[in-house]
């Protein structure tokens, strides 16, 4: 932690957007914070858990997480729910009605969107949720705003009796910038900080069915209240000073929000800017004032034309999406291109003298780049998922897949997963695919342990209920690996040890409880057992479950089995060992007579021995020291 001046009242810290949101929530005295891990939102809760006085828990999925936050609010406490964009779909059922009940303690919902899909299955623009649910929304443009607006969001939530959405994107959540912050609101491992100032007031519980029982008779009343609330929020949007105009040239102006604001300031420092950190409801009066004073105005926003639609709905048509992509991330270069095409800035290149050119060098660079492998993400050396996908590939069965590290089993060279659409899809889709009768072979559905708890249990119950026939595979590596190793019910741990007792839930007993009798529990490091078990399970006419058990090699601790393997002299270069996609198996610079390169195993090998089991010629052997 970097505190420039420990004695000063305000100091500075270099924080990610996620860390700054946690600090802002702590400053606001948040009592309960929940969520399910999802890139790029995953770091908020672990950072918040480093403070005292806050109960921070991973939930099994986003819906239960938001429901817990709602309950805490009914109990007069401030609560926060964090999720990635697609997770808000899971929580959208409670969200849409919470939007009309309103809150007691403030509720802040953080949705971290992932334009460009760095680690996601879609790039939906969650700003539409704020309009859909009629709840206000912040779009911070750097970490300092993440800190300030999270605090502000709790105040607004209680003042206007509404949940508040904070919508970030990957470039906000995972970028670091300087936050001006009181040292008391930074977690410090060495001291025992207490946020006494914001200790929640104790209020006795009183029921209020007209506010919280959304039976039609009460819901009709509350919906009207929510619509009235929007008007007040729009007034706030116009007058609070959070949305503001930075006047500069009166010839050119941009209306922008979130990370796009930073790109506009960098590319067009001369332009006037209407910055909308509180982008819903739209500050209609500010927009009208801005377009009246500034001659030519363009809207710069990432993904969908959300602000543009809102502005055109008040009868003002401005340039915008016709100059910027509706998909992917914006970059400073794309904003520059767009502003050039729109005639805002002239095409110039102040670095033209330094441009690459001449001597035929550039074409050499290009031709090498063409050959450069794309370096797709891959399962780690020693990943316990590897053997299962290799066996599935050998068995050539349709595999309905799911979301986690193991989605990489779909990529070459394993190529052993046929679908990845939503969290928990695998068992439902496996049931459906089997009903389609389109495959003569039995279907496999595959998901990880954390995903099973997230939403696999329900679809497995559905499968048993409807007498489906497929093989359900649960890859149990005792962590939520893809997002950085978060706990889940299978680990029996959570983020607030000491404050909350966590219980461990045994996957096998859950499966037995559903009434499934054919259950196999196997060690994925034993390839031959993996192959035989899969083959047996996939030829049986029952709904059956295979649970593979081996801890992830990265989380919670890095694992090295202390064994090393080597490829023996005489290897015929058949490349079979390549088929498992292990990052430790490389090409050497030595070639066989037939011009095939001889592979070798480098020092990153952790000794899982799967390659040894797979080499049919027995050319892989453990190095005996």
């Amino acid at each position, binding site marked *: 932690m970097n505190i420039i001046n420990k004695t000063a009242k305000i100091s500075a810290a270099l924080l990610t957007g996620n860390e700054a949101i946690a600090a802002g929530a702590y400053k606001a005295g948040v009592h309960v914070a929940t969520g399910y891990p999802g890139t790029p939102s995953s770091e908020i809760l672990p950072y918040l858990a480093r403070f005292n006085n806050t109960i921070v828990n991973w939930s099994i999925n986003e819906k239960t997480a938001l429901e817990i936050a709602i309950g805490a609010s009914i109990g007069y406490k401030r609560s926060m729910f964090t999720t990635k964009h697609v997770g808000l779909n899971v929580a959208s059922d409670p969200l849409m009605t919470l939007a009309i009940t309103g809150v007691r303690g403030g509720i802040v919902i953080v949705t971290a969107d992932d334009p460009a899909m*760095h680690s996601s299955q879609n790039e939906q623009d969650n700003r539409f949720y704020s309009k859909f649910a009629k709840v206000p929304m912040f779009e911070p443009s750097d970490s300092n705003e993440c800190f300030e607006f999270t605090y502000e969001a709790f105040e607004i939530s209680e003042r206007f009796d509404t949940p508040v959405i904070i919508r970030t994107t990957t470039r906000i959540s995972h970028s670091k910038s300087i936050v001006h912050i009181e040292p008391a609101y930074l977690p410090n491992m060495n001291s025992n900080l207490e946020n006494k100032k914001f200790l929640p007031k104790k209020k006795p519980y009183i029921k209020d069915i007209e506010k919280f029982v959304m039976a039609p008779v009460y819901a009709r009343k509350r919906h009207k209240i929510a619509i009235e609330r929007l008007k007040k929020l729009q007034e706030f949007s116009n007058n609070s000073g959070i949305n503001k105009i930075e006047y500069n040239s009166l010839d050119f102006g941009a209306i922008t929000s979130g990370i796009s604001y930073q790109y506009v300031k960098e590319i067009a420092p001369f332009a006037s800017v209407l910055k909308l950190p509180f982008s819903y409801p739209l500050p209609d009066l500010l927009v009208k004032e801005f377009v009246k004073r500034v001659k030519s105005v363009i809207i710069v926003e990432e993904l969908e034309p959300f602000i543009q639609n809102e502005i055109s709905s008040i009868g003002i048509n401005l340039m915008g999406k016709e100059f910027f992509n509706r998909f992917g991330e914006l970059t400073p270069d794309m904003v520059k291109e767009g502003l050039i095409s729109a005639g805002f800035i002239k095409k110039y290149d102040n670095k033209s003298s330094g441009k690459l050119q001449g001597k035929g060098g550039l074409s050499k660079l290009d031709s090498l780049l063409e050959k*450069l492998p794309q370096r797709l993400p891959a399962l780690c050396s020693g990943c316990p998922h590897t053997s299962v996908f290799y066996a599935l590939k050998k068995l050539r069965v349709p595999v309905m897949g799911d979301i986690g590290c193991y989605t990489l089993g779909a990529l070459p060279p394993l190529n052993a997963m046929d679908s990845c659409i939503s969290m928990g899809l695998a068992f439902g889709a496996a049931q459906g695919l089997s009903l389609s009768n389109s495959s003569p072979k039995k279907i496999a559905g595959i998901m990880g342990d954390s995903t099973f708890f997230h939403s696999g249990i329900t679809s497995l119950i559905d499968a048993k209920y409807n007498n489906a026939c497929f093989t359900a595979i649960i890859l149990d590596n005792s962590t939520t690996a*893809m997002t950085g190793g978060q706990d889940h019910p299978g680990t029996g741990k959570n983020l607030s040890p000491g404050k909350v007792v966590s219980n461990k839930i045994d996957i096998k007993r859950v499966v037995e409880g559903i009434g499934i009798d054919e259950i196999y529990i196997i060690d994925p490091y034993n390839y031959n057992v993996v192959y035989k078990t899969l083959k047996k399970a996939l030829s049986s006419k029952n709904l059956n479950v295979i649970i593979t058990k081996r801890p992830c090699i990265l989380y919670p601790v890095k694992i090295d089995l202390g064994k090393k393997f080597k490829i023996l002299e005489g290897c015929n270069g058949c490349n079979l060992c390549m088929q498992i996609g292990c990052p430790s*198996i490389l*090409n050497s610079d030595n070639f066989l007579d037939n011009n095939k390169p001889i592979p070798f195993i480098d020092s990153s090998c952790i000794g899982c021995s799967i390659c040894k089991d797979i080499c049919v010629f027995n050319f892989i052997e453990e190095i005996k020291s």
Partner: protein
Amino acid sequence: MDAQNILVCGIGGQGVVLAGKIISNAAFEKGFDVKTSEVHGMSQRGGSVSTHIKFGDKVFSPLIPGHGADILLSFDIYETLRYAKDFADKKTLIISSNYGKIPLWASTRENDRISLAEISGALKINFDKLLMVNNKETAMSLGNIKVANIILIGLLSKFTDIEEDFWFKVIKDNVPKKTEEINIKAFLAGRNEK
């Protein structure tokens, strides 16, 4: 001071994120406005990764524009090739490990194999300010292959307006106590390289 743009690249798991943390915190300790940007998640798994670092009097965008890196620091020569094309120009200082690896399964097509010599040759033709470093060997001679990247950070530090003491503080804050000494030694080996 105009913002200084540093792009760090390599392969997931190689320490690109840590390097970004050390460089950005050193700039922060010195008192600059600082922004960084990186991507986590899927790309960590052996994919190509990069961190953008910008510092100066005032920084807006956390992303470095095309051909806008002042320094490109690369831990893998294949990634140097990938990122130099988009982020470097004649004025960019490229500091690159002369080592690189491609997993076997990704490079099976015989015609697609690129030799390390070919890459450094092409880089030399195109970029005027190129420092290829045998950081792996220097790290071995220091007794720990894991400090290979700190050597490159030491070399990079010479080309910033950040004094030695800030670097020492940040390295000590960010490496395990027992590896502090060897990391500082590796940093100085890079910093004092001629």
